[in-house]
């Protein structure tokens, strides 16, 4: 039987127990496979990984790397999202201009941005800024297309109705366009955070001396499997934590 309000608290706690059990099973399987089924050199083992993480916490390097990655991620994300939404709104309201620019935008969108990293390093230096701009260059297109689709999806009659009441363009933007594209923006924000994180990590792995991407690359270069896995586990936790608030935001917008 299905209840209208979704799973009740009883079955939810059962599910939580099952999830914990599954996690333990995976860790145990990993522990026993290491050195028996597969060489520990490649897959390390949970205990060594935990020790590495413990060491990073103890010497404080974990926070430095997480902090660097998060700073890159959120700066790039914020810049890219702001520009993307602005351009999406602008071109959504000027279809002629949009049509003229469309092939150019599509061409640059299709280009794998990571390939531009060397150019960005030349332009913005080896430091944080080049990575921030790379992340922004990925996010800007995703938010641009999300916003543009949102603006195009707006019922023309809704706008005309307000226009006949005497609404000016800025009032139509505030009272119709913004609220109408909000769900599209939420979706865009949620999907692009994953791309932003990927770009951050890859950029750090390619050219950086700090950040989670650097940590993975650095450990791998030293054939330190425990270090690679430790960095991946940290990344896993961080990315899960980032996703939670965005998911809630979208659920709230979707409930209308």
């Amino acid at each position: 039987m299905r209840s209208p309000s979704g799973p009740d608290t009883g079955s939810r706690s059962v599910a939580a127990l099952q999830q914990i059990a599954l996690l333990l099973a995976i860790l145990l399987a990993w522990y026993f496979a290491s050195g028996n089924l597969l060489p520990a050199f490649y897959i390390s083992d949970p205990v060594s990984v935990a020790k590495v993480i413990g060491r990073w916490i103890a010497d404080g390097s974990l926070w430095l790397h997480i902090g660097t990655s998060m700073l890159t991620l959120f700066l790039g994300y914020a810049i890219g999202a702001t520009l993307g939404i602005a351009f999406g709104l602008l071109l959504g309201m000027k279809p002629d201009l949009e049509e003229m620019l469309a092939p150019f935008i599509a061409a640059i969108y299709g280009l794998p941005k990571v390939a531009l990293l060397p150019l960005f390093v030349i332009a913005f230096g080896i430091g944080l800024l080049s990575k921030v701009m790379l992340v922004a260059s990925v996010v800007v297109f995703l938010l641009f297309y999300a916003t543009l689709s949102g603006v195009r999806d707006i019922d023309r009659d809704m706008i005309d109705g307000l226009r006949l009441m005497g609404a000016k363009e800025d009032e139509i933007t505030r009272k119709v366009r913004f609220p109408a594209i909000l769900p599209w923006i939420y979706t865009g924000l949620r999907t692009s955070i994953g791309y932003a994180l990927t770009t951050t990590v890859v950029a750090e792995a390619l050219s950086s001396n700090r950040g989670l991407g650097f940590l993975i690359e650095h450990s791998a270069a030293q054939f330190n499997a425990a270090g690679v896995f430790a960095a991946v586990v940290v990344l896993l936790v961080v990315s899960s934590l980032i996703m939670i608030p965005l998911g809630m935001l979208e659920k709230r917008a979707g409930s209308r």
Partner: protein
Amino acid sequence: MKMTAAQKIHTQPDMAQITLENVTVEFTSRALTVKAVDSISLDIRQGEFVALVGPSGCGKSTALNMIAGLLKPSAGSVTYAGAPVAGPNTRVGYMTQKDTLLPWRTVEDNIAIAFELRARKAEAANARERVREMIELVGLAGFERHYPAELSGGMRKRAALARMLIYEPETLLLDEPFGALDAQLRLVMQQELLRLVERRKMTVVLVTHDLEEAVALADRVVVFTSRPGRIRMMRDIDFARPRVPEKLRFTPEFGAICEELWRELREEVAKSVAHHA
């Protein structure tokens, strides 16, 4: 051309509020051109209630779109209060067939939206009170905080009607305003509309499929031909105002006018059906 049109207005005793002169509308999609309206001319006096009837696709809604300034005629001219209509006509209230309520606003906030606009700020005095009255008038009391998606089609229509009526535009363009309502509610709403229109001396252009509705409410019924829409005939309806449609309906004159109009209309409907077959 323009001069004579202007002169005509000044020399007319009843000033024409809306004038369509030899208006033709063609829609082009791909290589196909469809003539929706074929050189219609129509004068609507200030304070007059005109009903447009005709088979589906005869260009009645197109005529409303032109008066509202949302559509430019391919040929001919549309004049409102002596000036050519160029761009959205903010002196009309337009209730389209499809309701255009904002889905993220409650009924109450949808109805009040006109008062949030700079253009209507002056009229926003005791807006709260007027919104409440209007909600009561259209029978949506108790649904103030509901979102459009939570309402039935008929309720959304009534909310849209309230949203248009609340700022009391001098001219109402109504496209099948009561189409989605059940028969009883339709009678009530017709009466309410008449009451408001007669009190405020509004000019009304009503598009409807319902001949009885047209005869009961309008001063003049215009019968359109099937596509391309032309004016087949006009009939003045001389019932005294204020009118009570529910009573009017049972008089022999009412039946006779409806029958007369229906004879004209049925031929056009038959033609349009033959077209589609």
